[in-house]
């Protein structure tokens, strides 16, 4: 009897603590959402608050009407995320698959080649010099896709381990006996078997591309190539920048810029897709974190 109470008490205690922690974790995010719906004058006199004196949709109205820059930045981010994730999944699985084949001659040397990138790097300075001086990607869409994220050792090993544990040599052997080429085996047999691990690395990679601002910070100076994150950085420093893209678009160019709330509305728009999509993909995310942590 006593033990049961002890367990129940602890369960109640755990629920209470975690509820508190969850509320503390979510409150900062809730503040920017509320701020984005707050009336500009109320914001200026009372600051960002959880219970604003007056509500308003002006920030979003402004963004929709004057948001040529924003739509463009959204487009850039979506394009970069799609192309980057697709290319990344293709390159990563293609590199990981031979590494998982036990009778592939260069298996060990290839694994070391990938692994060494985790141990040592040349640093951002030489990487920056290479991308700008040799490949000339500054101020191009390539600058947002190519540097850093396309193939990472972490993802390659994640996929390689998945293949090593889930693909039986016998399937491959029987396909070889039937005369299938290696490329055909990869495409027709391996790819369909990869769905769970591809889901995991796509999610990781898409998140990285969606949230990336570093490549933009280093390689982009022209606003036409700004993704949503770099546009956010720009308007944090200078909210008036939003006006530069409006140029009387739809004839509302003279509308007052609600600078204080518009900043937060922009941030909300930046995280909206993540919040909408994430609940459906959480299990892949968590699986990937666990598998990746155990053996990177």
């Amino acid at each position, binding site marked *: 009897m006593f*033990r049961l109470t002890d367990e129940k008490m*602890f369960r109640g205690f*755990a629920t209470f603590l*975690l509820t508190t922690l*969850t509320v503390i*974790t*979510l409150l900062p*995010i809730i503040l*920017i959402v509320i701020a984005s719906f707050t009336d500009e004058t109320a*914001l200026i006199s009372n*600051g*960002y608050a*959880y219970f604003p004196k007056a509500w308003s949709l002006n920030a979003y109205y402004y963004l929709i009407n004057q948001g040529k820059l924003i739509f463009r930045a959204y487009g850039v981010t979506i394009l970069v995320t799609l192309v980057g994730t697709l290319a990344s999944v293709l390159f990563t699985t293609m*590199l990981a*698959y*031979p590494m998982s084949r036990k*009778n*592939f001659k*260069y298996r060990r040397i*290839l694994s070391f080649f990938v692994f060494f990138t985790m141990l*040592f*790097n*040349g*640093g*951002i*300075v*030489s*990487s*920056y*010099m*290479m991308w700008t*001086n040799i490949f000339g990607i500054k101020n191009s869409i390539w600058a947002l896709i*190519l540097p850093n994220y396309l193939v990472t050792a972490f993802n390659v090993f994640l996929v390689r381990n998945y293949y090593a544990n889930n693909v039986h040599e016998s399937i491959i*052997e029987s396909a*070889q006996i039937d005369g299938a080429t*290696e*490329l055909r085996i990869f495409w027709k047999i391996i790819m369909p078997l990869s769905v769970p691990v591809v889901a995991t690395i796509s999610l990781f990679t898409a998140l990285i591309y*969606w*949230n*990336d601002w*570093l490549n933009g910070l*280093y390689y982009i100076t022209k606003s036409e190539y700004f993704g949503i*994150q770099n546009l956010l950085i720009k308007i*944090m420093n200078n909210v008036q920048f939003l006006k530069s893209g409006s140029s009387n678009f739809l004839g509302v160019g003279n509308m007052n810029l609600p600078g204080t709330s518009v*900043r937060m509305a*922009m*941030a909300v728009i*930046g*995280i909206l897709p*993540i919040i909408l999509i*994430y609940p459906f993909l*959480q299990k892949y*995310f*968590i699986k990937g*974190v*666990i598998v990746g*942590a*155990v*053996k*990177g």
Partner: protein
Amino acid sequence: MKKVIKKKNRGLTKSGPLLLIALPGIIYLFINNYIPMFGVFLAFKDYSYVKGIFGSDWNGLNNFKYLFKQDAFLIIRNTLLYNFTFIILGTIFAIIVAILMCELGEKFRVKIFQSSLLLPNLLSWVVIGFIGYAFLNADTGFINNTLIKLMGSGKEVAWYTTPKYWPFILTIVYLWKNIGYSSIIYMASISGIDKSIFEAAKIDGAKKLEQIKHITIPMLKPTIIILTLMAVGRIFYSDFGLFYQVPMNSGALYKTTQTIDTYVYHGLMELQDIGMSAAAALYQSVVGFVLVITANAVVRKVDNDNALF
């Protein structure tokens, strides 16, 4: 898992086509990761934009001498202190959260809590910088406008120009973003503990807290040691976003917010001092390399299965 031991027989497998499949990835890693490794010679040059990468004059160790005479102490101290704090507090909080989660027992509740605690980890540092701004901004920030008034002290703080608060702010932000993520790994290892051990303890009359103290935490020890060692291996690296976006790159705060990574960025992009930032980056890479190798050697001693290599 079936384990068929056969003779090393490459059978029908030809290496050529497989290598060809791997080629795009190999080329990418060669360009993105290996070519810059050879670029570290920039740290030994007096870089000039006119003369270019190869034409610039060599200047031996001067970049390093200058770096260590000037800023090295501050940026290394900041990087190390922050990382030590993050490792210690991050581990403690992650374990507490993981233990609490595993005590809930009910799947649905776990999912709700876990999703919420993970949410900050999915936000970009830029957005987190915005959230920080909503709280800390001197004129319209929540803390100056509401919290300080509520507490009755009435003294507004210019957060973005007062360095002494930032070690606390950055630690809070770090924990806020990362606890949910790092607790996942500890949850996984707690759920891997044999349930019958807890049953036996219960029969012996051990209370929940005693079970945690004498079973859960000792069983987590290998995971804690390994994750800590891996973090120590990366102790010379800092999360650039945390130290650049959250303080809004405010120059007044450099004393407490500048780490090796933000220093390299300033040198490269703002001061255009290529030689010096290359020197700092190379120093970071080399020390980082040594530390990772050392950490791994220690991990292998502790638990061979979890060594990286």
